[in-house]
């Protein structure tokens, strides 16, 4: 795995020296982070450590005090507000879903399509929206419902469908599996992995879900004390002796997730035909 990473070490997102504050309240201080092409990076940290703020900074919604942020080689901060080319290359799923409440789910997915590719006619646009909705695991009849008629988990999936609308290169997911039932959460994980493998996506995944971290993340970044205190595969993180990391992965929930993951690996090694070919597409 580590060799694969060395090979594929061109950087999709590079953050250097990022400082964010709200008045007196400093959220990030001199934070640096690299996300590689084609990897799923899990971002963890206690509530309020600034994971969502970090994501908002990367996508240009939160202007940091200092620092540089580059996505796919383009700087986010120097760019004009009007410079939208980079915006068509990422998809974002917000923590609260953030669906447009006056539009149906299908119309929500069609908004970015109409915005960036007006030459696609409306029939094809709707077809695209419908298969993206199905791809995100929603039943077909959800397409013509309004967000207020959906359950919490369905809103998440609709948000994912909208994030995937443009076949983005980079996908930002803010706690996608929070509030999903365990089966739904596992499907969501599989879906993310499947998309990442078929589309070669880079995924920036904020999560509290330990199963997700074990199952699909190539690397995990830990946010604490206003910085990324550690980044690496889970075994690499376990080798550090930071108390928060130890407690996070070795707490009762952390151990349970690790055990079930190990079981899974063993089962799959017995039937090599099914084994997942993890790692990076080249």
């Amino acid at each position, binding site marked *: 795995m580590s060799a694969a990473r060395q090979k594929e070490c061109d950087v999709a997102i590079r953050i250097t020296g990022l400082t964010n504050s709200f008045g007196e309240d400093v959220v990030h201080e001199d934070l640096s982070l690299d996300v590689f092409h084609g990897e799923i990076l899990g971002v963890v940290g206690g509530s309020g450590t600034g994971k969502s703020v970090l994501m908002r900074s990367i996508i240009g919604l939160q202007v940091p005090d200092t620092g540089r942020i580059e996505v796919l080689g383009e700087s986010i901060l120097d760019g004009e507000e009007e410079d939208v080319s980079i915006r068509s290359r990422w998809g974002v799923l917000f923590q609260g879903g953030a669906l447009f409440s006056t539009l149906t789910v299908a119309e929500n997915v069609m908004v970015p399509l109409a915005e960036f590719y007006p030459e*696609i006619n409306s029939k094809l646009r709707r077809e695209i929206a419908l298969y993206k909705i199905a791809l995100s695991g929603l039943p*077909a009849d959800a397409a013509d419902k309004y967000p207020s008629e959906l359950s919490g988990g369905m809103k998440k999936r609709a948000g994912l469908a909208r994030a995937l609308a443009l076949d983005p290169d980079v996908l930002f997911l803010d706690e996608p599996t929070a509030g999903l039932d365990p089966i739904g959460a596992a499907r969501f994980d599989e879906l993310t992995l499947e998309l990442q493998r078929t589309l070669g996506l880079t995924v920036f995944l904020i999560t509290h879900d330990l199963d997700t971290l074990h199952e699909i993340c190539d690397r995990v970044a830990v946010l604490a004390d206003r910085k990324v205190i550690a980044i690496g595969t889970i075994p690499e993180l376990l080798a550090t002796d930071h108390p928060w990391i130890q407690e996070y992965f070795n707490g009762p929930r952390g151990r349970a997730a690790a055990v079930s993951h190990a079981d899974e690996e063993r089962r799959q090694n017995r039937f090599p035909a099914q084994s997942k070919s993890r790692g990076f597409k080249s």
Partner: protein
Amino acid sequence: MGAPADFSVEERSDTGAVLRFAGDLNIATIGPIDTRLKSVDQTLALIDMSDVGHIDTVGAWIVHRLARDHGCDIVNLSESGSRLVDAVGKSDAGELERPHRPNVVTRVVGGTGEGVILAFTSMLAMLSFFGSIVRAMLAQAANPRRIRWAATVRHFELVGASALGIVGLMSFLIGIVIAQQGAVQLRQFGAEVFTVNLVGRLTLRELGVLMTAIMVAGRSGSAFAAQIGTMKLTEEVDAMRTIGVSPVEALVLPRVAAAVLMMILLAFYAMIVAMAGGAFLLWATLDLPIATFIVRIQEVVPIHDFYVGMIKAPVFGLIIALSGCYQGMQVRGNAEEVGARTTAAVVQGIFMVIVLDAFFAVFFTEIGWG
């Protein structure tokens, strides 16, 4: 980005028609060839993908749709390409018709009927809303510790104190307009002195309170509806209910109290300022001394004109707060609804104020306060 998408159809004797894609098949390139693909009229036997470069799910969808419609096979697809085609194929829900809209006649007739039903039911609902306010008020009177002083005082400020500037300016100008127009018209009969009667009676009885009510409806009625409506959307109102806080007590009563009390004070203030405007104009154009104006007002304006204005003020305040809070509470669903309900709150508030004003005019004349 990338090579433009293209395709060609080739008739082969052994297999039948073969469609050969070329270039990149992705969201950026697919637009132009979509319609051309629709017009392929031979039945295809094969789709050849060997010349295709980059492909994404939109390209995969186009290929899948073509294969589905012609019942043909796809050959020479790259590994990632075939994964994509499989993935979108599994997500193909078939043609899902948009729910079709009924024709114009049905829509108009149905809409009218629904409107009538809505008018009656919302009248009933508003009455029951008023009932729940009265009940909450009685409950608070029995247990004064439950009164939310902080919220109430805050709304006093928002509804009353911060409206002083705009209400004052408006009233002063209205006083000037009445005096100026009155003087011009009455001069034709040599009765300019009666301009004082006109200014005094009109501002005290009608315009002071009516214009203030319109201003309060626009400023505060709309704010009530938007605030409460947004809280409904974010489920704050539901959260309040679950922790045992009555939304009527916490949200509605402070606003109603503020609107009623502040309408009294604002209307009084508006009357005084409007008369000051009239006095100023008469002094400036007719050289009528201010002191004479005041003495004349006391002589010609009966005190019941003042009572009429002051009785109407709290009633109008109540109407405005009621329609603002009621409409806010009716918000459900989406952000557009907040806008619609806010508009409804203002329109309904002003409309009911004017209708009631007409009733009051007849009523007070009948009881001899004409």
